[in-house]
């Protein structure tokens, strides 16, 4: 596939205008530029059109037109994805769902809400908050990312340790199928007949169709919450404390780890009260009933102390709690102060492998002459090594990509996974053979064919581009769209 000729583009524009309105179509290359990448700016590609439908019917009409014209198409939420998931193919249509952002229904008694896909994650919690409810999945990007994007990537967040990821909160979906048919998968009830097609749609990264309505669970806000900061002089001790907390029969709502480099960056930038000389800090939160809160906090403090915490501090009030969380949540912003650029990795390992893997990550990155900051969901074993680099220095970015591939291989080798929440997208498609055999990928390909037989819906994602799936690639190779000069890295 290739971008459309100017003539065909000119011919199609009025048709799209008729489907979604003239104010709902972009076709000028300058305007399209905004949509050429997502949160992972490594990859870029220009669409022929970006459209802004307002209803499932409009989505379906655009999808049918794309089918007629044999044009690839892709859904886009807020574009905060970190794996290139919503990038257009070479040309084709981007369907931005940002105009479909309503809360359609809230049923407090049954604890469900029906929303449109372009609704910003946090806005749902704002909406149901006054009644004492919230939407549990809380990606750190929740102020911007959409629930449609969350569905596609099966997004997680700090509190997924206790509350699960997006898929655990989705009951049903109205979907525009890749052929333009509108249908429901699942529904409002917990059990619906047949295969769990809702469950496989979630996490399919926009390759199974476009969700246009989403039925989600909303939860009662917990009565109470307590946050503990535990400070360690050795990373190994912090890692061991994570296992110790769990061994004591506790399931905290969140256990986040912040390493030395990150603490320094955060303190330089925002001054959140983390001790600068610490090797690592754990931010541990328990929530639930008010009664028993102190007992649980004591257990956590005891576990951390036993594993060598130098200091533990329980947030005294909401202001102090917010300040501690600010340190965690603003880590990405803080890296910007200490490095011109950084690339965030996303791998998962068994919790017990944390000390070994963190040590290896530091060695790998150091061997490439780079620095790494770690801030991650330690309770889930979901690592986020952030490799700091300077894109202006020749060759540095290629080394980042190589180090990243080695880290992914490391995660795979200890029995983990190459993505805990950001998805495979374009970025990691060629790493899939690290953890899946040709037979595994073969079943995934068949499943995809059942939903998306023409492969027009978000092509080029998830599956390795190489012919031989068994072959393992380490290191950066230009993606086909780059090789053809249609996209570029910077």
């Amino acid at each position, binding site marked *: 596939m290739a971008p459309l000729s100017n003539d065909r583009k000119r011919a199609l524009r009025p048709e799209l205008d008729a489907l979604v309105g003239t104010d709902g179509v972009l076709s000028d290359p300058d305007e399209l530029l905004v949509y050429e990448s997502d949160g992972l700016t490594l990859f870029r590609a220009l669409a022929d059109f970006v459209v802004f439908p307002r209803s499932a019917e409009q989505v379906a009409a655009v999808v049918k037109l794309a089918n007629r014209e044999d044009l690839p198409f892709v859904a886009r939420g807020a574009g905060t994805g970190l794996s290139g998931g919503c990038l257009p193919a070479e040309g084709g249509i981007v369907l931005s769902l940002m105009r479909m952002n309503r809360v359609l229904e809230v049923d407090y008694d049954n604890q469900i809400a029906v929303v449109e896909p372009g609704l910003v994650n946090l806005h749902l919690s704002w909406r149901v908050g006054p009644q004492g409810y919230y939407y549990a999945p809380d990606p750190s990007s929740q102020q911007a990312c959409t629930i449609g994007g969350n569905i596609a990537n099966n997004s997680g967040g700090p509190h997924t340790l206790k509350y699960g990821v997006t898929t655990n909160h989705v009951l049903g979906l109205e979907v525009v199928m890749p052929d333009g048919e509108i249908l429901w998968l699942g529904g409002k009830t917990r059990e619906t007949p*047949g295969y769990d097609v809702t469950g*496989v749609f979630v996490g399919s990264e926009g390759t199974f169709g476009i969700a246009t309505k989403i039925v989600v669970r909303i939860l009662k806000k917990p009565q109470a919450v307590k946050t503990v900061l535990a400070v360690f002089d050795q990373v190994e001790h912090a890692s061991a404390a994570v296992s110790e907390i769990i061994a004591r029969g506790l399931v905290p709502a969140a256990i986040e780890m912040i390493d030395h480099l990150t603490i320094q960056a955060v303190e330089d930038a925002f001054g959140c009260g983390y001790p600068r000389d610490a090797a690592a800090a754990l931010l541990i939160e328990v929530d639930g009933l008010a009664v*028993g809160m102190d007992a649980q906090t004591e257990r956590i403090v005891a576990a951390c102390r036993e594993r060598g915490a130098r200091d533990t501090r329980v947030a005294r009030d909401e202001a102090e709690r917010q300040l501690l969380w600010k340190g965690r949540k603003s880590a990405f912003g803080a890296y910007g102060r200490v490095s011109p650029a950084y690339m965030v990795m996303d791998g998962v390992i068994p*919790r017990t492998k944390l000390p070994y893997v963190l040590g290896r990550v530091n060695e790998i990155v150091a061997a490439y002459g780079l620095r790494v900051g770690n801030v991650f969901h330690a309770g889930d074993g979901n690592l986020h090594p952030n490799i700091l680099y300077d894109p202006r220095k020749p060759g540095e970015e290629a080394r980042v990509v190589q180090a990243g591939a080695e880290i992914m291989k490391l995660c795979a080798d200890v029995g983990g996974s190459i993505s*805990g929440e950001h998805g495979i997208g374009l970025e990691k498609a060629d790493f899939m053979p690290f953890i899946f055999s040709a037979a595994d990928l073969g079943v995934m390909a068949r499943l995809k064919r059942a939903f998306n037989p023409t492969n027009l819906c978000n092509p080029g994602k998830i599956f390795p581009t190489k012919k031989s799936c068994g072959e393992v690639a380490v290191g950066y190779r230009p993606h086909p769209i780059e090789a053809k000069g249609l996209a570029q890295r910077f």
Partner: protein
Amino acid sequence: MPSTLVEKLAAVVGPDHVATGVALSPYVIEGRTPEAAVFPGTVDDVRAVLGVAAALAVPVVPWGGGTAAGVGMPTTWSGLVLGLGRLNRILEHEPGDLTVTAEAGVTIAQLQAALGAKGQWLSLDPPDADRATVGGVIAANASGPRRHLYGTARDLLIGVSVVTAEGEVVRGGGKVVKNVAGYDLPKLYIGSYGTLGIVVEATFKLRPRPDDERFVPVMLSSVKDAGAALRSVMGSDLVPTVLELLDADAARALGVTAAAALVVGFDGLTEQIDWQATELARIAAAHGGRTGAALGGGATARLATAARDACPAAASVMRLSVLPTQVAETIEHGGAAAKARGLTSAWSAHAGVGVVTAVLAAPDVARATDIAAVLGEWRGVARAGGGFATLEWAPLAVKASVPVWDDLGAAGRVMQRIKAELDPNNLLNPGRFVGGM
């Protein structure tokens, strides 16, 4: 041909692990005897057995503990029963990771005992834990009362190994608790009744065992009041693990005397449970009810089967999925529909998630027309509120007039394509599942 089949199977697993003739009696479903039953001891042998079946075009009926063998329509041809009982090893349990990997034939009781020894558990409590196996629980999406807080297999299964219809081993998911690499294949096999592949290994995420657990009954003077109390509990600060609503008969089976009852389960620190029990008593009083002494261990174990235990002479069991606010009405209407035709019924529900079990008793099978009519009305009640009904257990004569599975709607086309992709020759449990899949 049968002798060829048996000989070929014996060549794979050894003659001791192939059953024929009278040895097949435990595997007779609805009066249909399979041609053979085979019990492979390794995943490789499962692959080889599927190769034999595929080559001879003999359909395969995977068999765990047999607890759900009667669910669904009988297969169009009861070819080869593939028993997974010899795949009974717990492969990996690393307490610090809170994960376990077990073979398909491990029973839930065996698994819980091993995990319990390390202070952990799989937070899934399907009935018949002594017989129900890991593979069977996944295939039938079996669950129990604690699903109210802890969810079902889809919330706990993080990885799965499956032997496909072509005899290939395929892995989906992984061994880590958080993982979005590739499509979520574990979801595909949950509740697929063995029609898409044969689960041979599974990895679950686990929880630490709570300090303490308690089940408190609330006695109420009508099902309607129980429904109102249910709503209050759900809207309160309580965090119950279990929220069951029972009619008088089902309650009696647990030793609770009331026109209707809620059973509310709590776990955690003892002080948390105490506080919640006090709060529950306050809510109960507001609905004209009162809480009773905590259920004993025996009653707790029977919670999942209370409605069935209330009706030993069950003619049919229907499972209805509705919204939590519709549970009480569903039970009232459904009970009245049975009564109007002179039949009795017993009802229990995982009320907080709207999953209702209805048992219809009939004095004699000659009442086939009435039985079918009542079941039809029950399904109508669920459908009217946007829900669904499955005929979970019934004699073949009833299944002949009342569809086992509910209508799939437009999503059925996607499901049919999935089945066609993954089992193109229709070898796995053919005809058993919804839509003939």
